[in-house]
């Protein structure tokens, strides 16, 4: 269940993790992309952090909406619209429910509407999908997330920039999957699901 407190904590932990792993995420994006995923996410989460600390929002929908707007207006690239749309859809639904599973499902639906990708195309969807299933079954743990991220390694990309290298995308973890992994591990750490 999302609360103002645990949502803020979650986003703060996510920001910290992204800043810490910025270079690693860009490294993942180098052999199969253009090497900017860490910089993109770092710029976006920094803006989220600043907006949330100056605005002191008092309800979940506005926290999620602020997050969405910052990601949309500061990230750019592919990850900006995808993460931004996910948070925007979550923000919309959060005035109706604060349950984690339906909120994440709404976020994923937004990602798919925006990017037209399916499971198995080696994108962040390959982390969001199993994570949501686990949340629904009340079984999400770090191992599930880790497994989902690692599973992108053996996939061949058919969406996003990694698709340009075709078969040679196999053998590399998808950078967006890795950053989504951090999103969900920090969600666990913040006690949002429990």
């Amino acid at each position, binding site marked *: 269940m999302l609360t103002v407190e645990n949502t803020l904590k979650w986003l703060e932990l996510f920001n910290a993790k992204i800043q810490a792993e910025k270079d690693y995420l*860009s490294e993942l994006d180098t052999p199969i992309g253009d090497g900017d995923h860490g910089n993109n996410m770092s710029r976006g989460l920094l803006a989220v952090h600043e907006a949330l600390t100056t605005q002191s929002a008092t309800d979940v929908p506005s926290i999620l909406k602020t997050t969405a707007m910052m990601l*949309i207006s500061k*990230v750019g690239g*592919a990850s900006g*619209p*995808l993460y931004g749309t996910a948070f925007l859809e979550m923000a919309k639904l959060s005035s109706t429910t604060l349950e984690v599973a339906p909120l994440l499902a709404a976020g994923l639906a937004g990602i798919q509407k925006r990017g037209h990708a399916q499971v198995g195309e080696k994108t962040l969807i390959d982390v969001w999908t199993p994570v949501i299933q686990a949340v629904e079954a009340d079984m999400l743990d770090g191992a599930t997330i880790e497994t989902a991220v690692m599973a992108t390694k053996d996939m061949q990309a058919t969406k996003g920039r990694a698709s340009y*290298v075709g078969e040679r995308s196999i053998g590399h973890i998808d950078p967006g999957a890795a950053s989504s992994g951090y999103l969900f591990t920090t969600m666990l750490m913040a006690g949002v699901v429990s």
Partner: protein
Amino acid sequence: MKKIMNDPSQIVTEMVQGLVRSYPDQLKQIPGTEAVIKIADLKQRPQVGIVSGGGSGHEPTHAGFVGDGMLTAAVCGQVFTSPTPDQIYEAIQAADAGRGVFLIIKNYSGDVMNFEMAKDMAAMDNIDVRSIVVDDDIAVENSTYTQGRRGVAGTIFVHKILGAYARQGADIEAIEALAQQVTPNIKTIGVALSGATVPEVGQPGFELAPDEIEYGVGIHGEPGYRREKLQDSRHLAVELVNKLKKAHHMTAGEHFAVIVNGLGATPLMEQYVFMNDVLDLLAAENVEVDFTKVGNYMTSLDMAGVSLTIMKLIEPGWLAKLEEPVTTIAW
């Protein structure tokens, strides 16, 4: 990494400032954005606004093509990163003179998504916004297996032709139909002699040995389709022309426009030598080359190499549109 810059995270902001301060009679910055728009008063002679943009690092693209007869506005994203929807939306608003705005988007998932979000925002203002996604890079397979072909140097032909028709007064339906007709006739392929170094990253996206080249790299350092030993210019020309010939199903007597585009660090001298070889090969095919252009138009920061764009001129009017004078910095 050796670059003339200050804080790498501010490089786009400072670049845009340097640009508009250098050409104050031609360009101005749209307040609060890193988008630039031409100075001429749009309301004087209302036309369909033509807006393009994308990641920075491809200069003079896109801002260098803003001007009378080409783009109305250009949006500069972070280095190699699509601009955000709010910035594109501001550019659309500024470029709208009541006759709608046409977006020229290069086919990258990021660009497509950000421009579409901007389009959605503008639709709420009742601005008629339409768009084309340019995908001229034949180095990658088409969309069955990939995100689809990338938009690269051939995009400037789209800027030029749509810009010319828009200036002449064409309405947005006509511009849209034209864009759909022009774009499939533009095909490009490149060869890199070195990788590009993104300022915030500090290392080249890929490294090539001193005697190695790579065919088919993208303009963001996306890997290409083959690495091999450096060949002389004639051999490079044969590889690229053959690929383009096949993609165009080129036959004798057809008419074409050709751009040899420097990727950033390759001197004009080498580009002219390369064009000389390309023209020999095209002459041998007995096709007519009606329009040619050589220079750094769609660069990839400090990457060395060239791309070759060949456009089939299936409509006689297109050539005149390519030749029409414009007031841009870079065409």
